Structures are given as C-alpha cells and as structure tokens.
C-alpha cells in the first residue's frame, strides 16, 4: 500500500509516464504473413496518471479491507485460503493496473476474474454460492471473449503502426504509446480502418461491460453478493468491477474510440445508471441494494468515458471506490451484528451501532451526491462532462436525462435502506440477536473510509491531484468550474438528490414501513423489478436449458448415427460371413460344382470382361 501511494504521489509531482524494464514473453521471428517484422508479446509496467490513480484506490482500499477482514472473518474456517486468494487478487489487480500492453492487461484481467470466482465461491458448501461463482465467471467470460476478439483486431490491423523504422507495433510488443497531443496514438497511426476500429471498440466495450456489470451483462453482480461482504466491498465495489471502466479509459487514451463507439458507450452507461437504480429501489437485501447501486455508479463512469472524458470517469471511480467500500463495510458490520441481510427484519440499529450508522449515512450522502461529500464533485463532473458534449450527437440527450433521473432514484433507495436498517425503535424481527459494534479492526476502516468519503472529492482542489487528472494524456480533465451551466446542473442534481432523500424519509423514516396495497397496479412493476426484469431467468433458459438440450441431442446423434454406422458396417460383415459359410456345405459334389462355375467365370473374364475393360482403359 505504502509503495502504491508513493508512486501515486510521485506521479502527482511530475505528471508523465514511466515505463520500466519489460521482458519478452513470447517472440516470433520475422516471417512472411501478417507480421512481416515479427511479433513479440511482452510483460512490462507503465506508470502514468491513470494507473497511479487506480493504484491508490487498489492499495488503500485493499489494505483497509484486509484490516477489516481480521475482525469480520475471524469465525470462518478456511482463512488461509481466504487470505491467499485475497492477496493473489491484490497482486493481479496491481499487475492489471500497471500493465503496459493490452495482452498483459488481459492476462491479469482474467486472473482477477478467477480470484473473484474463487472468492464468490468462498462458502462453496452453499450451492447458491457455487452457482453464483459459476455464473459470475461465465458472464464475464462472454465479455472476455469479445475483448479478446477486439485485441486480435487491433493487433493485426495495427501490427505495422508506430514510428517509422521501429519495426511497428507488433515488433515492439504492442506497448501503449503515449499520443503526443490530445489525440490517441492508434486512431491516427493508420489513418483508415475506421470500420475495424469501430468494431474493435465495440468488442472492447463488450469486455468492459462484462467486467463492470453493465447492461446487458449485469446479471452476475447481484448474485456475486453470495461471497463474504469484505470481498464484495473490495472486488465487487471498489476495484475489480472498476477494471472495466479502467479498460475503457486506457483504450480511449491510447487507442481511441470512433464516434460510433462513443455513442454506444454513452448509451450503455446512461441506460445502465437508470436501469440498475430502478432494481435497487425495491430490493429487500441490503447488500444487493448496494450492489445495484454499484452497477448504476459504474454506469456513470462509463458515461463519462463515452463522452470523451476518461479522467472524469476515473475521478468518479476514485471517489466511488471509497464511499462504496464504506457502504459495503458498514453493511458488513450490520450483517455481522444481526446475522441477516433482510432490511425488513432490521430496524432501530442506530442506537446500538452509532459508528456504523454514521458511516453508512456518510456513505449514503456521498452516493446521493449531496455536497460537500465526495460523490457530489465527481458525479457533478460526470454530468457536466456529458452536458458539454450534448451537441455532438442528438442521441446523447435521452441518456443524459436517464442519468439525471438516476440521481433521484439513487438518493431514494440508499436512504430507504438507511431508514429501514437504522431508524425506528427496535428490530422488526424480535428473533434477531442484540446488535453490537464490531471489534476495533472493523471500526477503524469505517472511520478512515468515512474520512475519505468526505474529503476525496475535495482532492481536486489540491494542485498535485489536479495536475494528475489534467496530466491524463489525450483528454482534458474537468476540474469543477462554477460557470453558470454547471451551477445550474449542480443545483438540479443536488435538488434531485435531496428530493430522493426526502421521499425516502417520508415513506420509511422513523421505522415506518410503507406497504404497497396488494391490489394496486404498481404491484406488477414491483414484481418486475424484484425479478430483475426476468433477465436472469432468460439467460438461464438460453444458457442452460437451450444449449444443454442441443448438446443432449447432439450426443444422441453421435452415439447412434455416427457410431451406429460403424457398428452397422461391422454387423454387415458378420452377416455376410455367416451367410457365406453355408457355401462350405461339406458335399464334395458342390465343391466340384464351384470349380466348374469358376471355370466358366474365368472364360467370361477372359473373353468378355477383359476385352471390354481393355477397350475402356486402353490397354493395361
């Protein structure tokens, strides 16, 4: 952690990128084909504003979560496995952040995926956990495959790109090259190929969507909450899920998106923000509510990058990492205390768990974007960033508005959760154990993170941090400016946020429970949301039932048709043999008859068949 922060600080003082030594992982000598100058795949590290920013997040949150785990996990078995996998994850995540080419990036990308697979399935005795782990791996796998295809397109299309005489990108190991100006390197390098570049961009977006649980690959993240809360906080809120956003960021910085790609990204991001928020509105499970909000917040980051402001996206990522981890850890200590995740069983916890309640509230305010908490600054930047680009394409409008609407929902659902859990006199389910605060190792991280959640947004005003954001090559960072439009935007969004909080208070405050009439038509909507728009059902149906049925049919075909023909051939020989044996009648006269028949046959051969064939073949 210390090292990470140091690197980041160093980066703050002097923006720029440092690439230190790399080793060749696989080298193919020049040979005719698509890689005339040869091909080498390397492992190296690249430290630049983006990576250093991520590095801070990964190391800090990682450290705090480790600390928190000591308390949270102490009564679980298999702790060595837990810490080993967690450390492996942190290592891979660091590698991913420092990767200096897409292949290496993909390598660590897969590794973090596997770690998340292991950690989600940490309670593997629980069938639901095992299934959730599998689901997470598979869905992200779909994204990975698209990402891989994107890599192929880029690698072979631009194999010769790069400074003249350098042998080209392929020969140099496809390392990221800093665009000299605000223009990404590859987009200009080869001039044309815009179609291919678009396709590649879309494929990479697919990869990012898989990892960052963007629509339509979002289904796995809520289920991933089967894992320990600490894991959810670290991997499924702060770091790994953010890797998708990070991928989009570096792609837009080093490779560049075409306008079509940007529109697609904006669409995905904008829609996801709203889409996920709606599902969070009704859910009774505290962790899943936070999970949905994660999806929605990731949507904001994607939105910003789509609008062309990678650093803004990362800025939101930075702040979000802290307050979302905070929320998860707070929820974790709640669960630790009462042993359930069902909001409707809790209630009145704030009396027993002041620290947690305060931490959750701070996180909530940050998430809702209430100034001066961290969330406000970054989310405000995102919105204004998109707003500044509205002119570039009319279709930006709807998604911009969706994002705005999401602000309101966000504020509502997170405080709904807070009121349900903490407000009121006592727990609704009397069977719950008496709540109590966790040990200090659990409280310290809460406090620290609360601090971050408050101030992280203000870092923008530190010159070093600002330069870090501005130093992001190829894009203009947006420091908070107080121009009229932004003031307008900010006030609107804050207004929406307060509105959401207010609504939540009016419905759930002081332990009230707002029960929806069974008969009301809204029930249909509620059911739709609770079933997550039936996405998971649909995927299961296609993925498991559909494919499995096909494969069973294929298996049948394989056993009985393909293999059957072979066995049929065998039986045919057996049959023929059996029949022919009857000729061996044992009567010598028959044998003599065969001889005479053979003689006649010979004459036919010699006098008729032979001449005929020779006539056809024209001599032997």
């Amino acid at each position: 952690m210390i090292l990470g922060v140091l690197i980041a600080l160093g980066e703050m003082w002097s923006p720029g990128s440092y690439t230190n030594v790399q080793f060749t992982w696989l080298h193919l000598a020049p040979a005719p084909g698509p890689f005339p100058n040869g091909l080498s795949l390397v492992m190296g590290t690249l430290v630049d504003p983006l990576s250093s920013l991520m590095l801070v997040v990964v190391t800090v949150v990682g450290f705090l979560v480790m600390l928190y785990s000591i308390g949270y996990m102490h009564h679980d078995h298999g702790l060595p496995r837990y810490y080993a996998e967690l450390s492996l994850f942190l290592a891979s995540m660091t590698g991913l952040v420092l990767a200096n080419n897409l292949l290496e990036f993909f390598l660590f990308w897969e590794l973090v995926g596997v770690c998340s697979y292991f950690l989600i399935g940490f309670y593997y005795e629980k069938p639901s956990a095992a299934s959730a782990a599998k689901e997470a791996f598979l869905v992200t796998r779909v994204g990975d495959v698209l990402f891989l295809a994107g890599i192929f397109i880029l690698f072979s299309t631009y194999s010769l790109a790069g400074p003249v005489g350098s042998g080209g990108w392929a020969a140099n190991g496809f390392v990221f090259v800093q665009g000299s100006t605000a223009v990404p390197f590859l987009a200009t390098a080869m001039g044309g190929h815009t179609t291919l570049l678009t396709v590649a961009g879309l494929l990479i977006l697919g990869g990012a969507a898989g990892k960052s649980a963007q629509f339509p690959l979002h289904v796995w993240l809520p289920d991933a909450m089967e894992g320990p809360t600490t894991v959810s906080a670290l991997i499924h809120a702060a770091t790994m899920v953010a890797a998708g956003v990070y991928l989009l960021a570096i792609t837009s910085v080093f490779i560049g998106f075409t306008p079509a790609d940007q529109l697609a990204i904006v669409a995905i991001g904008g829609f996801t923000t709203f889409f996920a928020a709606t599902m969070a509105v009704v859910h009774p499970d505290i962790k899943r509510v936070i999970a949905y909000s994660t999806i929605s917040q990731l949507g904001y980051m994607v939105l910003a990058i789509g609008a062309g402001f990678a650093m803004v996206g990362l800025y939101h990522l930075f702040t979000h990492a802290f307050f979302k981890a905070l929320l998860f850890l707070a929820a974790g200590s709640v669960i630790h205390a009462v042993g359930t995740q069902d909001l409707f069983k809790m209630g009145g916890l704030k009396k027993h768990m002041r620290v947690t309640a305060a931490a959750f509230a701070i996180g909530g305010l940050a998430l809702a974007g209430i100034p001066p908490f961290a969330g406000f600054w970054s989310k405000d930047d995102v919105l204004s960033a998109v707003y500044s680009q509205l002119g570039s394409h009319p279709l930006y409008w709807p998604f911009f508005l969706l994002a705005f609407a999401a602000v309101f929902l966000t504020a509502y659902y997170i405080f709904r959760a807070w009121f349900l859990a903490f407000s009121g006199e006592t727990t609704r389910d009397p069977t719950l154990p008496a709540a109590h605060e966790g040990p200090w190792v659990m409280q310290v991280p809460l406090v620290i993170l609360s601090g971050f959640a408050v101030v992280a947004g203000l870092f923008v005003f530190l010159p070093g941090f600002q330069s870090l954001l501005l130093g992001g090559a190829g894009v203009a960072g947006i420091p908070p400016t107080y121009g009229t439009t932004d003031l307008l935007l900010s006030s609107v969004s804050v207004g929406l946020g307060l509105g959401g909080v207010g609504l939540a208070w009016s419905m759930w405050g002081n332990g009230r429970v707002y029960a929806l009439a069974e008969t009301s038509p809204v029930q249909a909507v509620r059911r739709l949301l609770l079933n997550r728009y039936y996405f998971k059902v649909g995927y299961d149906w296609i993925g498991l039932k559909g494919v499995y049925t096909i494969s069973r049919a294929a298996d049948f075909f394989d056993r009985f048709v393909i293999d059957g023909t072979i066995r049929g051939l065998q039986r045919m020989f057996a049959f023929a043999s059996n029949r022919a044996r009857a000729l061996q009648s044992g009567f010598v006269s028959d044998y003599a008859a065969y001889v005479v028949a053979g003689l006649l046959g010979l004459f036919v051969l010699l006098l008729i068949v032979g001449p005929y064939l020779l006539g056809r073949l024209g001599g032997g």
Partner: protein
Amino acid sequence: MTELALTGFLGLSAGLFGIGIFGILTRRNFILLLISIEIAMNAAILNFVYFAAFPSGTSGLSGQSIAVVLIGFAATEVAVGLAIVLALNRLKGTINVARANDLKL
C-alpha cells in the same frame, strides 16, 4: 487331314469332356465318379493325339508320347483313388461321397 475333320475330332473330345464333367457333378457313387474323371481325362488324351497328327515344325515332346505318359498317369491316379475309397468303405461302410460330409462350414 482337313480343318473339317479336326473340328469333328474336337467336337468329339469336347463331348467326352462334357460328359465327364457332367458325371462328376451328378454322380454320388465314388466308382462312377472315378469313371467320369477318366472319361474327361481321355478327352484331353485324345486331343494330344489329334494335334500330334498335324505337321508342325516345332520340336519337343510329341503328342503320342504325351498320350502314352498320361494313360499311365491316369492309371496311378485311379489306383490311389481306389485305395482311399477302400479305406473309407471299411470305416463308413459306404462309397457314397454324399454320406461323407462331417467336415463343413
């Protein structure tokens, strides 16, 4: 001799041969079988004799000598055949070849 005569002779030996083969195919009695074989054999021997009658510049065994040799050979063959059928008759009490078909399939 004339071509015509030759064809006539050939017809004769062909007929003999045919009779012999027919006998071999139809007879079940071993002795009759032997006789049929001998008839067919004689067709071949006859052939050698006619063709010997033709003036041909080639040397080698003459048709007559071949005929004589073959007659002798036929005798030995018959002798062996009879020896076998005697032994068979002693064991099975029949000389009907159709009755000896333990070895089959």
